Structures are given as structure tokens and as C-alpha cells.
């Protein structure tokens, strides 16, 4: 590693001439910053661990909560987050290749690999946006409170709603009218408000319509909160029994039997703290990824302009590389402790 002057004796070492770590000031400061940032993330993950360890009920399980893929629907446990992890690892690799090209003063190579890194970063941020959106909107079934007071998450295929046929006219819709728009949204809103009863929906304008819906399939109820009859840890309830219990509760005509998605007030997937930690930890990490992409773009423009080539070394690329790898490093831990365990 040492450059031209390798004459190291007590006089040079203690004379204030030799950098004790044989590294530049900028790189050392980047490491100090990364250690402090690592303490922040460490603190957040430990706080998550604290909450999970002192929590009494059932904690959400990653493979049940995150099992959807864009364009493909559900039933793909952890696959999407694995893809995100892979994208981030690959972008870390392209970054280290950019650093390596910089060591050989290969300007074209640095630009090429940095562009690849930036593209990977954008893909990751976009994936995270999709996952947040999915987490906030929730599943088509929602979390249901069953007749005995227990709560269950619901897995399976939700049969499509074809239309609503108006049976009792309201201010807006006439009797016999067929409503075909915004069905899922209306249905979920009515379910939360307790406006579904015996297969019929009470619409905003006061009309009552019959719900024409295809049958669900492969339904499964997994108990997440004890009730009088069903307990956490019971075997999942399948098929016709599950459908009967689900619709008994959904069509009871009472509010607050079902929760769709997660926000800061309610959470379909489990306890409220789970959603808050999800938003904070993945959000804070996503913010790091985003700022990493911005920094990479700025440095890449510097490389294109030839700033670092003139300087005689590409250490700036190495320093942004450190930050970028750190973002990947944090994700490795978030992936394990949030999604896997």
C-alpha cells in the first residue's frame, strides 16, 4: 500500500509526518461517519428487538406478511424482498468495480460501473416504494375479527367482484342499475364501516345493492389474537369453514370487524408497533439509499468532467463507494431481522 517513501523509523513515525493509519483524512472521516451511522441503525434494530421480546401476543411473520409480487399477485413468500436484496448486492458489486477501475485510472470504466450502480439504486428505491404501497393498502381480505372475538389474518385467492346490482334505490342510483366502477374500494370501505349485510352493500347515496362476486378459493384463517374459541397457535382454518366464519363476520353489518392495510393508526398484519418500526427502519434505510444515489450521480458527473483524473487519483469514488456499501450492509441486517426472523 505504501507509496514512494517507505522509510519508516521512529523519527518519521513520531515526527507528525506519518499518517498513523496510512489513510487520507477524507477516508478516515467517512469511516467515522459510517460508524456513527451504524450506531443509529444498530440502535433502531435493537429497539425493534426490545419491542418484539417484550410483546405478549403473536408477532407478524415475514413470509406471511410479505408474499406478493408485482404483476403476479400473492403466494410468493419473501421472493420480492429477496429480489430487492439481490439488486442491492449487485449494485454494491458494480460500485466496487468502479472503485477498482479508478485504481487503474480507467475513467471510462469508472463511469460505466457508476452508471450501473445508479440504475441499481433507482431500482431498489422503486421496489421499496412498491412494497410500502402494498403494505399500506393491505390485502384484499384484510384482518378479520371473528365472532368469538379472536382476530385472524386471511390467506387465499379473493374472488373478483363483478358488479353491484341496485335493489333499493337511493338518491343517485335507480333500482336495477348495475354499478361496475370502483367496486373493490367501495366494498372495503363499506366493510370497515359495517355497511355489508347478507351479501348486500349499503352505498353512499343510501341505495342498497346486491354484491355479485366470484367465489374465493384456498381461503385460510391464521389466528393472531386469542378469542373465546380460537387461540393463537391453533392450526390454520381452511376451506368452507374459513369462508363461513369470514363472511359471517364481514357481512354482520357491524363496523370495525375488518382492517385493511397498515398506517400509523391501525395495522392489518399485527401489532401497531410492527408497522411503526417497518415505516421507520425501512424508511430511514430507503432515505439512505436515495441520498446514496444522489451522491453517486454528483460524483459520476465529476468523473465525467475529469475532475478526479486531473487530481491524479479516484479516491472520491472510493469514499462514495464506502457509503454505498454501507447502505448494502445495513440492508443485510434489516433483511434478516425484519423479514426472515
Amino acid at each position, binding site marked *: *500500500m*505504501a*507509496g*514512494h*517513501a517507505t522509510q519508516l523509523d521512529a523519527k518519521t513515525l513520531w515526527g507528525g*509526518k*506519518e*499518517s*498513523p*493509519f*496510512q*489513510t*487520507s483524512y477524507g477516508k*478516515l472521516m467517512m*469511516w467515522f461517519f459510517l*460508524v456513527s451511522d451504524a*450506531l443509529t441503525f444498530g440502535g433502531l434494530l*435493537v*429497539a425493534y*428487538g*426490545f419491542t*418484539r*421480546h*417484550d*410483546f*405478549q*401476543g403473536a408477532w407478524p411473520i*415475514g*413470509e406471511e406478511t410479505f408474499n406478493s409480487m408485482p404483476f403476479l399477485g400473492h403466494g410468493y*413468500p419473501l*421472493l420480492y424482498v*429477496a429480489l430487492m*436484496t*439481490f439488486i442491492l*448486492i449487485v449494485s*454494491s*458489486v458494480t*460500485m*466496487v*468495480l468502479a*472503485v*477498482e*477501475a479508478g*485504481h*487503474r*485510472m480507467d475513467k471510462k470504466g469508472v463511469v460505466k460501473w457508476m452508471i450501473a450502480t445508479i440504475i441499481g439504486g433507482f431500482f431498489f428505491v422503486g421496489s421499496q416504494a412498491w412494497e410500502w404501497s402494498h403494505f399500506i393498502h393491505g390485502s384484499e381480505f384484510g384482518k378479520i375479527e371473528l365472532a368469538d372475538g379472536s382476530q385472524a389474518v386471511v390467506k387465499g385467492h379473493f374472488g373478483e367482484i363483478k358488479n353491484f346490482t341496485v335493489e333499493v334505490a337511493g338518491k343517485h342510483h335507480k333500482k336495477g342499475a348495475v354499478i361496475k366502477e370502483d367496486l373493490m374500494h367501495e366494498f372495503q370501505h363499506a366493510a370497515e364501516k359495517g355497511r355489508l349485510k347478507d351479501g348486500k352493500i349499503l352505498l353512499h347515496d343510501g341505495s342498497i345493492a346486491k354484491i355479485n362476486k366470484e367465489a374465493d378459493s384456498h381461503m385460510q384463517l391464521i389466528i393472531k389474537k386469542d378469542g373465546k374459541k380460537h387461540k393463537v*397457535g391453533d392450526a390454520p382454518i381452511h376451506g368452507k369453514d374459513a369462508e363461513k366464519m369470514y363472511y359471517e363476520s364481514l357481512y354482520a353489518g357491524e363496523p370495525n370487524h375488518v382492517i385493511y392495510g397498515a398506517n400509523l393508526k391501525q395495522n392489518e398484519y399485527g401489532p401497531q408497533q410492527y408497522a411503526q418500526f417497518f415505516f421507520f427502519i425501512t424508511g430511514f434505510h430507503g432515505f439512505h439509499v436515495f441520498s446514496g444515489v444522489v451522491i453517486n450521480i454528483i460524483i459520476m458527473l465529476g468523473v465525467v468532467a475529469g475532475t478526479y483524473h486531473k487530481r*491524479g*487519483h479516484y*479516491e472520491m469514488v*472510493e469514499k462514495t*463507494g464506502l457509503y454505498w*456499501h*454501507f447502505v448494502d*450492509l445495513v440492508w*443485510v441486517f434489516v433483511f*434478516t431481522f425484519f*423479514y*426472515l*426472523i
Partner: protein
Amino acid sequence: MERDDLIEYSLHAHHNEEHGKAVRKKIYFVTILLTVITVVEVALGAYIKQSSSAWPFVKWSFVAMTLLKAGYIVMVFMHLGDEKKTLRNVILIPYILFMLYLIFIALWEALEVGHAWSTYGAA
């Protein structure tokens, strides 16, 4: 004022093509390793239920695989393995010691708090 009495270190020591090849080989090896570990983790996570008797083993293997991945990222991608030993120790030892302490104290406390809730109060 520019100082000319400082001893130069790595900044201007460029790699030649041959050295670059060796470095790239190492990078590709680590890439494959990280990918394989991630695939194994996801497969275990998807197929072994948390209620299964193998779960405690799987859980700890996740932790071990994560630390292995982290080690390769820090040592190879972040070049900490190529830095001076003192720098490596200054960065890693305080952090690891502190995190071990924090994990121990927080999780131990959490179990006690949870125990107190279930014994004396309604959660």
C-alpha cells in the same frame, strides 16, 4: 500552503492490469457467495415454519449467515481487510463491543419487562 514534508501513502499507488484482474476475481467470488447465501436464507425462510422444531436452529443459522455476509462486505467491498490493522481495530472493536453490550442489555430487559406485564398487568 501546500505541505511537502508529508509522507505519501496509497493515493498515487495505482494498480496495474494484472493486479486489477486479481481484485476482480475476488469481487466475483464474493458476489457469488453473497447471492448463494441470500438464496439459502430465503429458501429456509419460506419452507421452514416458525412453529417447526427446526426453527431455533434455522434462526441462529440466519444470524450466522448474516454476519458472514456482513464480514465479506466490510472486508472486501469496503476494503477494510486491506487497510492497516490499527485502523481496522479502531473501527471494528469499539463498535462490536458496544453492540454486543446493547443487544444483551436491551433484550434481557425486554424479557423482564414482558415477564412483568404478563405477571402483574394487562398488556
